């Protein structure tokens, strides 16, 4: 959305933002104050889809000067060090962790913080010499990230193989209970050892991380990838230029028939969104000089050929519910076979559109954008009417097995990321295998990504990222808080009541 000049002074005078947050917001306003029609050559029709909230650009701005998500291959550092930062290749765990922390402060993204901090266990494992001492170092390293990257879209990966480093990371995560970095275990039931899976489940219940990603499924669709930000699967050594999203709920409400939505609205809005994405990418690649000026590109941490972009949706539930209502069916998405059929019709229409569009500078993903189930944002009134991604609204959730089966059928559509989350009760701590069974069952049913946490813990999952309930309460009371995501968490909870997901007992 275009910025107004008044936002500048409002931000400067704010009582509940810290210096760094004001700085980032001011930079974002600058990006949004340049005229998209002039800079990106957006058309009047395109502008209109943003103004009527059908397409959301997530405040990415119009003077785009870096890709939205960057997924550096940090193994390059272990091997070659970094010339630009005058760092030699690390020779011990101290040099490795210190070097990584330095690197992180030079990895940009849409949030200005790194959204990917690497395949941590693989990076650290070769440097483990003394598990007791290394544990303390790893714990300090993770805590350092939490305090200097105060934004839980920052994401690390472990797995699929069990390693000493992986186990130490999980141990530290349980001890720290920090929101950042977010963490995912790439899971493969044939490779990931049971004992390691149980440990990961224990950490997930006690510290709301790691989440579990279906490694085989993502390798098939994206190749070598990192799980970054909320739960996005993107090529390693690359990333995503941009992410725009269709608010399906808002779009459907402008239609008075199923046919109107499928045959007219969706094709028109897809086309509009493709055009906007194309223009953004062309600007980044051809005009912003990002790749020419970045040491990440020069030294091989990233390669512009590994970038793609994400064509995202939110509000599938509301779109389906609107059509059910038009068709006089007294049912709701999540508990309706007809609803599921409508959802497939919507998503396969979009899938086809995405496959028919030739995307510029996206060779890595066969010149196509990747469909994405986007979750978190509370940017406008319209977000209240658009449940995250493909998810079932809080309050309409069926019992767990039926919920899993319902949602599993939609994971196939979203190669760059999709995920469901479930709040469990304390009793699962006594039977970690039960959670492993649920996760493996979900993967066998087509799941790509699943998150669990304990309903009553301070640290909880909002939509893909973590917040502390206590910090959100501070934000509600207008206090200055450390993490940007606490404010987003507050907005998302207000919109979608996500702190009160059905507890699975």
């Amino acid at each position, binding site marked *: 959305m275009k910025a107004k000049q008044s936002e500048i002074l409002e931000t400067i005078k704010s009582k509940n933002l810290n210096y760094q947050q004001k700085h980032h917001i001011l930079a974002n306003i600058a990006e949004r104050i340049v005229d998209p029609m002039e800079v990106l050559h957006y058309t009047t029709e395109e502008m209109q889809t943003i103004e009527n909230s059908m397409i959301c650009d997530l405040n990415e701005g119009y003077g785009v000067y870096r890709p939205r998500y960057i997924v550096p291959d940090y193994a390059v550092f272990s091997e070659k060090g970094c010339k630009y930062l005058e760092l030699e290749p690390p020779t011990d765990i101290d040099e490795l962790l210190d070097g990584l922390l330095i690197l992180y402060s030079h990895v940009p993204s849409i949030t200005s913080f790194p959204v990917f901090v690497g395949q941590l266990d693989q990076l650290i494992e070769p440097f483990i010499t003394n598990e007791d001492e290394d544990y303390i170092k790893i714990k300090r390293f993770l805590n350092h990230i939490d305090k200097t990257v105060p934004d839980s879209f920052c994401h690390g990966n472990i797995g699929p193989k069990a390693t000493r480093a992986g186990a130490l990371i999980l141990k530290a995560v349980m001890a720290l209970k920090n929101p950042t970095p977010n963490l995912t275990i790439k899971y493969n039931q044939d490779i990931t050892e049971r004992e390691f899976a149980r440990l990961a489940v224990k950490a997930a219940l006690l510290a709301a991380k790691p989440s579990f990603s279906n490694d085989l499924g993502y390798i098939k669709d994206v190749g070598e990838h990192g799980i970054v930000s909320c739960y996005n699967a993107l090529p390693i050594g690359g990333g995503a230029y941009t992410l725009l999203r269709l608010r399906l709920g808002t779009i459907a409400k402008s239609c008075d028939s199923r046919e109107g939505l499928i045959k007219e609205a969706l094709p028109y809005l897809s086309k509009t969104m493709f055009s906007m994405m194309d223009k953004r990418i062309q600007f980044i690649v051809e005009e912003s000089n990002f790749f020419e000026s970045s040491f990440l590109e020069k030294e091989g941490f990233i390669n512009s050929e590994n970038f793609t972009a994400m064509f995202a949706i939110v509000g599938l539930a509301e779109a389906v519910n609107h059509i059910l209502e038009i068709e006089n069916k007294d049912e709701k998405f999540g508990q309706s076979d007809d609803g599921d059929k409508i959802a497939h019709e919507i998503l396969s229409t979009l899938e086809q559109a995405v496959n028919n569009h030739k995307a510029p500078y996206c060779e890595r993903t066969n010149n196509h954008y990747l469909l994405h189930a986007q979750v978190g944002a509370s940017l406008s009134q319209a977000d209240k009417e658009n449940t995250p991604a493909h998810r079932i609204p809080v309050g309409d959730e069926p019992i767990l097995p039926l919920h899993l089966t319902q949602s599993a059928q939609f994971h196939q559509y979203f190669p760059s990321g999709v995920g469901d989350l479930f709040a469990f009760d304390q009793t699962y701590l006594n039977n970690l295998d039960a*959670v492993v069974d649920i996760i493996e069952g979900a993967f066998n049913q087509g799941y790509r990504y699943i998150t669990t946490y304990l309903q009553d813990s301070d640290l909880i999952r909002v939509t893909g990222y973590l917040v502390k309930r206590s910090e959100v309460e501070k934000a509600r009371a207008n206090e200055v808080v450390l993490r940007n995501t606490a404010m987003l968490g507050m907005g998302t909870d207000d919109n979608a009541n996500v702190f009160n997901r059905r507890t699975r007992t």
Partner: protein
Amino acid sequence: MYLTEGQERKSMEIQEITLPVNEIIPFSNVDGRGNRTSIFVQGCNLNCVYCHNPETIKLPCEETQETNYTIKELLSIIKKYGPYIRGITVSGGEATLYSTYLTQLFGEVKKLGLTCYIDTNGLFNLEKMEALIPITDKFLFDIKGINNLEKVTRKKQVNSFDNLEYLLKLNKVEEVRTVCINEYIDLESTVKEVSMRLRKYDDVIYKLIRVHHRGLTLNQKELVQGFVPSTKEMVHLENLAKSIGVKNVMSIF
């Protein structure tokens, strides 16, 4: 091939027999290892003072509220949960009252690649279980106590240690449980007696469950109140079992 009249009747009976079910819990994490679907049958041969599911005690009659499932019906429900569970556990009530049905059901459930557990109070006639035991993967086995059992179970009976011993030797026991209630039974002797038998079996879990009155009927609460062991007493019992050599002891409060 033609069936004899007797065989034909028997095969029809098998298709038509039903199981009186009080409740099905799709996902349970307390009825054996992993995630399981728990099926609670209606009807029990005991009437324990602290029974947690007293509504399942009465045998099916006009007053009880159960649903009768044919094997086919029950299977279609299990299949729905199948992808996410490791198996089923039949509990109750007393599952072993329905051994003919369960033998048939388990045969079908096994074809789905799932395991079959029985949660039992241990009071069953071994001869009637001849077909069911081999097809059951594991038993969760209650030991009520070694003496004064009539006081706890309010039924005349013989003790179940022989059945436990038999199943232990077959490696069919996953856990043994004793609900700890003071004065009704000699807790210390009970724990000793069970522990002596379990110490040879490293994998078997011994759960010591402190009796509690959450969820009990008013009448039951009166019977139980005042006999709840203290935390100290529970810790003592746990240590006793460990000192005898039981590897997996868990106190549940």
